[in-house]
């Protein structure tokens, strides 16, 4: 299969309304791409470590904010470090959680070493096997309209696998101070909630 999608250019097409979600980004490339696209909006929390934590963090958020839609963007390596989280999500069945995995087949942040998905692992099949009810794979721009509909309409929790080329993420330097990011996200969310 020819992989032609460049991770640096796809988010506006895939997520045209990022402001309608509470957003979580897994470490490294996913965090940089989403931080750059949203200019580190107040509805985004990015990880800079804690590999494997993005999906369970988003699950805790989704269960605690049932009126909101939560979307987590993460990479194949980050997800594979804690595949069990997909089983956890499927057992709980949150109706407001979307998981989007940018699968570049390797570990971009550490030098582009190949990962399991460049060999034999198919994360969409893993998600299906774990019991995620809605699963879709995207490999080309032509699939994006269907992918947007999937994120809107497919029964949640949803898992969208986006196969992207190996290559650098968006060049963007985000805030590394997690305590500051926590307060910013929390105050923005709770302020909105208190304002009704």
């Amino acid at each position: 299969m020819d992989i032609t999608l460049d991770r640096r250019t796809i988010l506006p097409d895939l997520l045209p309304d990022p402001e309608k979600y509470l957003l979580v980004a897994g470490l490294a490339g996913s965090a940089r791409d989403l931080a750059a696209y949203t200019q580190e909006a107040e509805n985004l929390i990015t990880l800079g470590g804690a590999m494997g934590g993005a999906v369970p963090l988003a699950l805790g958020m989704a269960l605690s904010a049932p009126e909101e839609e939560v979307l987590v963007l993460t990479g194949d390596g980050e997800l594979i470090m804690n595949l069990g989280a997909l089983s956890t999500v499927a057992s709980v069945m949150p109706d407001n959680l979307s998981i989007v995995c940018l699968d570049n087949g390797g570990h971009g942040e550490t030098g582009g070493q190949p990962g399991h998905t460049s060999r034999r692992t198919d994360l969409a099949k893993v998600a299906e096997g774990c019991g995620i009810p809605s699963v879709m794979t995207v490999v080309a721009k032509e699939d994006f309209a269907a992918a947007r509909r999937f994120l809107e309409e497919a029964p949640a929790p949803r898992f969208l696998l986006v196969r992207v080329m190996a290559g650098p993420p968006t060049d963007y330097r985000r805030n590394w101070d997690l305590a500051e990011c926590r307060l910013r996200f929390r105050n923005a969310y709770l302020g909105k909630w208190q304002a009704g």
Partner: protein
Amino acid sequence: MTDYTKDQWSRLIFDKLAEAGVTLFSYVPDFGNSTIVEMADADNRTRTILLSSEEEGVALCVGADLVGEKGVLLMQSSGVGNCPNMLSLVPGGRFPLLMVVTMRGDYGEQNPWQYPMGQAVEPVLQAMGILTIRVDRHDELDTAATAAISAAFKAGQGVALILSQKFLGAKGF
């Protein structure tokens, strides 16, 4: 001391957590936390989340805090060994975190496999900046549970309430 049943101390812990506003009870199954989990399942203020690995619970509680809610992470002592890197979130982000750890590999343990991790629980947690409050006697539980809840949800610390095998009674296998 033998009069103090698992139902009684589980009730004390569950009630204090629920009253403190804890809504998410995440856990990896252990004999020691099973009654608390049953109570959280039965109460309409709280819900339980079965985890695959204990480290997920750290991130899950962090996610709850980001939207103003409270979680707790229940695990057996061996699960502490699955958590250290994920615990980076807690001191790094000044997130509150409350763990309830039921011990193996401790006083009276008969299974040699349990000792290495059991003996490493407190050093590992402390190395990651998590406070430890150990309970050996039944008459300590009430104040220890209150102290742990206050440290987490009033003072914003990462804290583990550790129920020792002196407290739980060593398992006969």
